[in-house]
């Protein structure tokens, strides 16, 4: 009674006795140290009571000499539940198998969608993807990260300039930019070409339209360069002006470069650890022990286990510890200036179109303070400054 739960764990049996000696049988049992509870009378001479499963041998021992019959009418508790579980284990197995299958299927690759590539490139990309194992029916755990696939494809497929790899659920979406993409012939509406920036014109290549500026002209932003209105007063025509106007433009860049530079260099040694994450619990699966490096860079590759469209709080993580050494590079003033100029040039190039060229550079200002070389550089750039400006119909100059 006091500890029903403990009894439950050990198993409880309900016994029905019938016969004249039922009460006497109860007395002998209690004296033998058997705990009995919930004794109920059912009509004359029939009793039911509950007792522990582990006291059953004692009951058997006294049953022979007892003047009554008894039978078991109820079984409760863990031992019986276990038996039932074993008998119904098929259901449990089925449920587990189902879950496993769903989880497996949720983590497979079900589709690879390549967009923006012509069929030949698409085929080549599919072949390359197959080489690294990316194909339908593969488990995502064993595949490279989207970034890795992206890198591999850009390196190995020459036809593409850039590819964006994205994993959405079970499908890889690949967005491709091909190198020689067929140029779209746009239908141009009537337009002028105006200056985008201020500069001195050094060359004009006009396909259509009437030039309104000459070489060596200094132009301001918004100034008309090529007009879309051609012909004389008698025969006027509005056309989409097309062409390139190359001009020398000026940029100023301020850069600073340290005389001492600390950088991390990989030694090539690395240690890989695999970890199974269950919520916040982390269980190492492979790769034990200390990392063994004083300086290292940690790279984490975490694969979340998915269930249908949800992500489970289970993840397989691969940690790569790459040994790194800190190197301090000391530059002389001259070297620093050279490096600073390089930096400035790459900085400027980022701002410009691809076809722009650097014509010249002048260092305007140069100081050394706080262990840094500070440069102010003036660049002369040759670039296309033409910008389209639509001619609104009816608006005639």
């Amino acid at each position: 009674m006091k500890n029903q739960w403990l009894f439950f764990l050990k198993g409880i049996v309900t016994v029905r006795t019938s016969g004249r000696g039922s009460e006497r049988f109860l007395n002998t049992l209690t004296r033998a140290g058997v705990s009995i509870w919930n004794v109920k009378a059912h009509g004359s001479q029939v009793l039911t009571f509950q007792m522990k499963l582990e006291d059953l041998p004692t009951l058997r021992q006294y049953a022979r000499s007892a003047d009554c019959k008894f039978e078991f009418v109820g079984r409760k508790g863990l031992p019986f539940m276990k038996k039932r579980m074993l008998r119904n284990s098929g259901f449990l197995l089925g449920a587990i198998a189902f879950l496993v299958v769903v989880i497996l299927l949720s983590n497979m690759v079900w589709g690879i969608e390549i967009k923006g590539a012509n069929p030949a490139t698409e085929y080549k990309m599919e072949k390359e993807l197959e080489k690294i194992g990316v194909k339908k029916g593969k488990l995502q755990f064993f595949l490279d990260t989207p970034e890795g696939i992206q890198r591999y494809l850009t390196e190995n497929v020459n036809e593409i300039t850039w590819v964006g790899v994205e994993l959405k659920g079970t499908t890889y979406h690949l967005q491709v930019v091909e190198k020689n993409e067929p140029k779209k012939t746009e239908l141009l509406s009537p337009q002028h070409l105006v200056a985008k920036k201020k500069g001195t014109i050094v060359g004009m290549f006009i396909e259509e339209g009437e030039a309104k500026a000459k070489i060596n002209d200094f132009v301001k932003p918004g100034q008309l360069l090529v007009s879309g209105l051609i012909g004389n007063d008698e025969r006027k025509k509005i056309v989409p002006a097309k062409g390139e106007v190359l001009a020398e433009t000026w940029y100023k860049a301020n850069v600073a470069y340290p005389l001492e530079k600390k950088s991390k260099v990989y030694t090539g040694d690395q240690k890989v650890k695999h970890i199974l994450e269950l919520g916040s619990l982390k269980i190492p699966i492979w790769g034990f022990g200390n990392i063994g490096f004083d300086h290292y860079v940690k790279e984490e590759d975490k694969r979340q286990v998915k269930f249908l469209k949800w992500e489970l709080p289970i993840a397989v993580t691969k940690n790569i510890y790459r040994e790194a050494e800190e190197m301090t590079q000391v530059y002389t003033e001259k070297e620093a200036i050279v490096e600073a100029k390089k930096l400035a040039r790459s900085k400027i190039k980022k701002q410009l179109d691809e076809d722009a060229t650097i014509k010249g550079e002048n260092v305007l200002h140069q100081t050394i303070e706080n262990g840094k070389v500070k440069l102010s550089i003036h660049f002369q750039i040759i670039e296309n400054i033409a910008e389209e400006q639509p001619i609104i119909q009816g608006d005639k100059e």
Partner: protein
Amino acid sequence: MAKKWGERLRSWMTKNMELPQDVMMDLPRITMIGQIHIYIENHRGLLGFSDKEVRLLLEHGQLLIKGNNFVIKTIMPEEILLQGTIDQVLFVAE
């Protein structure tokens, strides 16, 4: 004669030494909670049990409990907890 002396001594001791009588004299200690529970210590065994009547053996005589819907919640060699609606508790001399 000797038995009588022993009994006398015991009753004298309980009277003068303020010892509980159920311990000294093998008497049942009966605790009741309203009509619903009855707890008997120091019984000597179950003689009869039905849902309307329970008969217990005592050191001297028997205890007869009458009522309805009796269920023995626990039974131990010298203790018994009975549940139900208790109407009467009778001492039956042998």
